[in-house]
């Protein structure tokens, strides 16, 4: 388990270093994600990846993924007045735009998939 946590942190650290030094557009953790996936493909563990150290550590973290957003979420309270100042316009825009984004993304995904299959 400790080895798994170390590997996750190491991937993030390398991602952070690459992102900064090469001024990549992707943030450190996202590059770390790509590094971990690429590492697993190259290493190709023989057993089920869930049984490896890194697999156990990753699954333990992902099982409580929602929890990790709570501290930032509570931060919203701090800016209620800021939000109230811009008020309704932002609320309406957020809800409508999120619905439109979901529709556009899923629509284009399915449309291209169907065309590619045909």
């Amino acid at each position, binding site marked *: 388990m400790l080895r798994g946590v170390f590997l996750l942190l190491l991937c993030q650290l390398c991602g952070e270093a690459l992102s900064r030094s090469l001024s990549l557009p992707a943030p450190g953790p996202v590059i770390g994600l790509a590094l971990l996936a690429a590492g697993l493909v190259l290493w190709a563990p023989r057993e089920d990846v869930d049984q490896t150290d890194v697999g156990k550590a990753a699954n333990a*973290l*992902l099982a409580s993924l929602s929890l990790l957003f709570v501290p930032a979420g509570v931060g919203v309270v701090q800016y209620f007045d800021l939000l109230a100042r811009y008020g309704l316009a932002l609320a309406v825009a957020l809800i409508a735009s999120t619905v439109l984004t979901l529709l556009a*993304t899923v629509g284009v995904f399915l449309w291209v998939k169907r065309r590619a299959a045909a």
Partner: protein
Amino acid sequence: MNWQLWVYLQTTPLFWLTATIGAFLVADRLSLAARRHPLANPVLISVVLVALLLWLSGTPYKTYFDGAQFVHFLLGPATVALGVPLYKNFALVRQNLLPMAAALLAGALVAIVSSVALAGWLGAPREALVSLAPKSVTAGVAMAVSEKLGGLPPLTAVLVILTGVIGAVIVTPLMNALGIRDFAARGFAAGLASHGIGTARAFTVDPVAGVFAGVAMGLNAVVTPAMVPLILPWLIR
């Protein structure tokens, strides 16, 4: 309880770290009892519980965050951890490269244009519009984009979190109403529109949806920062 003891405890990181995890356990119970109904979103419930506690005890957010930062820190490693389910479903992801690329560009474009155009039409001022543009991307990246273009990073953080919660609440009923059963497509949309909070929701609905949500979140963290500076001049005069 001894008043002085309480006064002491509520200023310690230990108290607020414990309270954060405790509030989440309660919220998760409620969410399970509601059979994972989208409105009973565990992030939303926990935030309300903790915010209520902060308000009742008159605790400033900074004191709270001294404790909660230990949980917050894990967001980075958890993002890296998405590499494991990605690896497990690598074949499925590879089969869907083309739909993913097209949906990524379309979704990112619609997220930016629709939010900025709507809020602008409803009379929101310039700095609010700039702060709104990167709202579908994970918080750290969105704040950097907002700052670079003259927005208000704290406002952006709030809008990002709200977008996450809105997407996580809406995505399941919306997709069910449309009769969409392709969990790769559903998950991809959830992660693209509402980043990590949408991804967390996707994982509770279906493991494949979770994987595609994580991939969409990662890809959008690259595409939106590139797209916003190109599009914004056309939307804001």
